[in-house]
């Protein structure tokens, strides 16, 4: 089984993140750039499937040249090789354009299974698995908290607010995973040293047969017109207990869907 894992480099969600003032895109220059956290779970899932069923795991990343660092880190966890789609024309691409590029890259890889994180911590739009599956004409099993592979049959438990749904599809398919699905491994020292020597192929838009006008700012279906800093946090509500404090607390928790 050939598994492609989508890995995105994002600004560290634990630190301060900014949008650039010149073109409203994510400011990668000043950020500490890391592997999107959810993608580590996707890598782990791919590796554990490989351990059970054999095959090959390929990391696929679209991003600027600096994303190579995250690709090497992903490879140090154990995947066999990586493809890095890098092209200056990609800067400013929207989700729709990104899905076009990734689908074209996947199309060249002849994958049986595509695994990705359910969302990235920068964009958080959660549409990539659906868009890619649509473009490739294959099934999308999204939001998995469990994935079982039985021959060409894939079964997931899709996490919902109330519980989970069991969804089945045949390969090839796209599966997106939540961080409840597994516990990602630490890269081993051998893995770190081996990662340097693993094949990493860089592909341009021309290599993928995608026209530059379809991506970047020119091809974007949405535009960020302006942005501003989030307002400072407001003070919380204080519930004074005059006999009905408990009820008020439960009402609040219920309204916020905590209970």
């Amino acid at each position, binding site marked *: 089984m050939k598994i492609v894992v989508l890995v995105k480099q994002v600004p560290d969600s634990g630190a301060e993140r900014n949008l650039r003032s010149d073109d409203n895109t994510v400011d990668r220059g000043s950020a500490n750039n890391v592997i999107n956290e959810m993608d580590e779970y996707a890598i782990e899932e791919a590796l554990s499937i490989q351990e059970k069923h054999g095959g090959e795991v390929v990391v696929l990343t679209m991003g600027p040249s600096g994303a190579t*660092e995250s690709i*090497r*880190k992903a490879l*140090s966890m154990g995947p066999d090789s990586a493809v890095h789609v890098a092209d200056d024309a990609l800067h400013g691409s929207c989700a729709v354009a990104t899905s076009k590029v990734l689908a074209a890259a996947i199309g060249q890889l002849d994958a049986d299974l595509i695994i990705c994180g359910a969302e990235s911590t920068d964009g958080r739009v959660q549409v990539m698995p659906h868009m890619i599956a649509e473009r490739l004409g294959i099934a999308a099993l999204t939001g998995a908290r469990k994935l079982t592979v039985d021959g060409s049959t894939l079964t997931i438990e899709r996490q919902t607010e109330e519980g989970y749904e069991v969804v089945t599809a045949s390969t090839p398919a796209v599966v997106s995973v939540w961080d409840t699905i597994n516990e990602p*491994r*630490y*890269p*081993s*020292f*051998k893995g*770190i*040293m081996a990662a*340097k020597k693993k094949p990493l192929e860089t592909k341009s838009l021309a290599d993928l047969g995608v026209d530059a006008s379809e991506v970047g700012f020119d091809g974007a279906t949405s535009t960020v017109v302006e942005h501003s800093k989030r307002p400072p946090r407001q003070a919380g509500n204080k519930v004074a207990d005059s006999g009905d404090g408990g009820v008020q607390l439960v009402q609040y928790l219920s309204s916020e869907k905590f209970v």
Partner: protein
Amino acid sequence: MADRVAPLDLIDVDALHSEEELQVRDVVRRLVADKVRPYVADWYERGEVPVRELAKDLGKTGLLGMHLTGYGCAGASAVAYGLACLELEAADSGLRSLVSVQGSLAMYAIWRYGSEEQKQQWLPAMAAGDAIGCFGLTEPDHGSDPASMTTRARRDGDDWILTGVKMWITNAPVADVAVVWARTDDGINGFVVPMDTPGVTANTIKHKLSLRASMTGELVLDGVRLPADALLPAARGLKAPLSCLTEARYGIVWGALGAARDCLHTAIDYATSRVQFGRPIAGFQLTQAKLADAALELQKGYLLALHLGRRAELGLLRPEQVSVGKLNNVREALAIARQCRTILGANGISAEYPVMRHAANLETVLTYEGTSEIHQLVVGQQLTGLAAFAS
């Protein structure tokens, strides 16, 4: 308030490392944050450590015998090994001791001086953390002067019979195998001793006031019969165990800095939030003087450790150079820990903060693997050409 710079970022030491070295460091830092930091104060208080469980996690990552090659070992560089020791000891000196003894003493002795059969039998299991090793050199009455050891190995037919007592043996109470040094008719020799051999007993040393998150034992060898192939064939004389100690000491040169860094981080965090006389105590000149001096010693120690590491990578590191590093870095780390303790005031003695634990641990690190005084004599001998050791 302007942004704060982490002590080790003052002179950008990261710029001296390869990406691979930094990655190794990050993995160990993450492992320690997940598996050790939340629990270590409790282990310390109870004087118990889940060594076997920890060894599995450490082995999976490749930390055990990481600087050795083959037999399941990671084959990492000396500097990567040093960075790992630093991150381990930033959690607790006991954790670094566990790794040092396993990798640099027990595994190294077998890797360097063992037969192919001994290596095959023990190294892969030890690298994986499935087998724990210890190293028996020190005796109750022979510490700095191991040449006077009284543990004896005599021949009985092809077999060897070992008799003696080894003391202050890290990992002994949980070990599967001991590398034991004993006097034979040929001088000092090393033996690979499975801990389940009849006549071997490991007694846990209790009531320690330092290095409590580490298992320490007394190793009693009472007429232990071993087959001929238990002898480490390539180890001849005291040079062999001393070469193992040089390996372990190199890890301490880095490790001690980890304990110091953790103390300094804690002290800076504390001083910037603790308000007295209407402002954070970090804003007082006396506190800043302490922090600045500590940060300086930390940087200097780091540059020294890194220099020694780069020499080791070229195969040019000499034992007396490791003495320079161990003497300086442990002494300064202890001074930093004590100074940071004063910044935390009464809170400094609480297990809520790691500072007193590090300070107490470093008292052990100061005298194990060669006391400060012995290392002064080693350096002194280099400078004068005169040996000031007795006899």
